[in-house]
């Protein structure tokens, strides 16, 4: 396979896409939101357990492409045990990484946050049409944090 495909589909991504972590609907969760990408029809639901402003558990269910599944899987790992504010900065940092934006988001993002494993998504910015696949779970996550009831879409 050509070099640059491996840049997009890094081993970690393929691994998480094939065997998503935290897949399911934890009965104890107290926030949830659905995400929908109208371009491809992918849908997923993010379930959070928030205790005293800390994400103590995160999980998801749904079906989608390798990028969106791996993104959801890694996201649920990364946001666990973060405060809501920390998790939100992580989203901003992640968004700046995959959308390649240099502006406000990138500068303000990530106070105290560190991309960690999420850095494997750096190849996504070369594929503009796939950026939404990577951010879909995060949009749903942000909506769940806000306690939003309506489905969110990547078009917002």
């Amino acid at each position, binding site marked *: 396979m*050509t070099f640059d495909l491996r840049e997009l589909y890094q081993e970690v991504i393929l691994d998480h896409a094939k065997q998503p972590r935290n897949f399911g609907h934890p009965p104890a969760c107290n926030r949830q939101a659905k995400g929908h990408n109208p371009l*491809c029809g*992918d849908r997923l639901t993010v379930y959070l357990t928030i205790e005293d402003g800390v994400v103590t558990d995160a999980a998801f269910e749904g079906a989608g492409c390798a990028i969106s599944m791996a993104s959801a899987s890694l996201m649920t790992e990364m946001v666990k045990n973060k405060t809501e504010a920390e998790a939100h900065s992580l989203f901003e940092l992640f968004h700046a990484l995959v959308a390649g934006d240099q502006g406000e988001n990138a500068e303000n993002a990530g106070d105290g946050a560190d991309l960690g494993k999420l850095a494997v998504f750096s190849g996504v910015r070369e594929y503009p049409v796939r950026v939404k696949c990577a951010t879909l779970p995060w949009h749903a996550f942000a909506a769940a944090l806000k306690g939003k009831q309506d489905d969110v879409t990547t078009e917002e």
Partner: protein
Amino acid sequence: MTTAAGIRRQVQRDSDRLAFDVRRVREDFPILKQRVNGRPLVFLDSAASAQKPRAVIRAVQQCYEREYANIHRGVYFLSERATELFEGARVKVQRFLGAREAREIIFVRGATEAINLVAQTYGRKFLNRADEVVLSTLEHHSNIVPWQMLRDEKGLTLRIIPIDDSGALRMEEYEKLLGTRTKLVAVTHCSNALGIVTPVKEIIRLAHEKGIPVLVDGCQAVPHMPVDVRDLDCDFYVFSGHKLYGPSGIGALYGKAALLEAMPPYQGGGDMISTVTFEKTEYNVIPHKFEAGTPNIAGAIGLGAAIDYVSGLGFDEIVDHEQELLEYATEALAETNSLRLFGTVEDKVCILSFIIEGVHPHDIGTILDHEGIAIRAGHHCAQPLMDRFGVTATARASFGLYNTREDVDALVAGVRKAVEFFG
């Protein structure tokens, strides 16, 4: 496939093997020479929009360089020339569809606008509360949403012709849907997502037995088969120029003259009137009644050139070539492990819609793109159809008259690579 039709095609093919020279045809399409990601472009998304032959590009360019002015108004040479060419394009569409008269052809932006026009004029005037419109499960969103908008405005009911697992319309169910409340049937001639050709002639015959008019969405049919609206006896027929190797932003609505005359205008403005005072306006005759404002003049002329191009090659040749590609591609893809093909009927145009277990269509699309192969991954603007099959998306390879067996080979190799990569 050793069906009678297949054999007939084979015999036919052998006898004039040299007649359709796809290499020469490809020379007519400048864009196909391009390389993508360092590889020759393999363009397999013609159902979304087809590439343009030089004849079309030249016609548009020539219009702007030498023949352009506004139409139907100038008393000077250029305006008369542009009007002649624009109206000449209308006659080309008329002949292409086998319509009785040129005034039965309305120029529109495309199929979407044509269907909205019918819904907003015919539908608004003649459909009432509790009336029913019959659509099919195969429809493109553009033949669903305009009817939903009308439903919400009028209190209509939409009834949907179901399909079987092969994708074929269930005609016995269709017959049962036709009742005293049915006021219109709107169906596709050919499914953009699956390539299935529907039995429109029979659909129309059954509807007409009950006095119900029929609109046919011909977007995916006109590039691939000869169409004769008088033989079909449809009441409305719509298509988009850009799928027929013509420019984007131009398409046609065919309507039987008596129906068009009975319909109120669509938009108001210049050209659609005969006299205007602030008290009262007299509308122009058809087709002008439906063509308010300055139309896409160069687009119509380009569409005329596209029709000349396709007619020059001839549908006998085009159908043979594309049906051979369809058989070849169907067999080749069927040999791929864990691949599921949708739309497994005999009567199809060359569109292959599939999923692969464990590999999302989007990922297939990205892997193929790396090989320089353009396919479509998604719901193809036919979400109800995707729902029917319990999938959110498929990968779709759609062929045009310029595609080759080598394109099929590249597709199959690319698909196998994707399977390996994610396997």
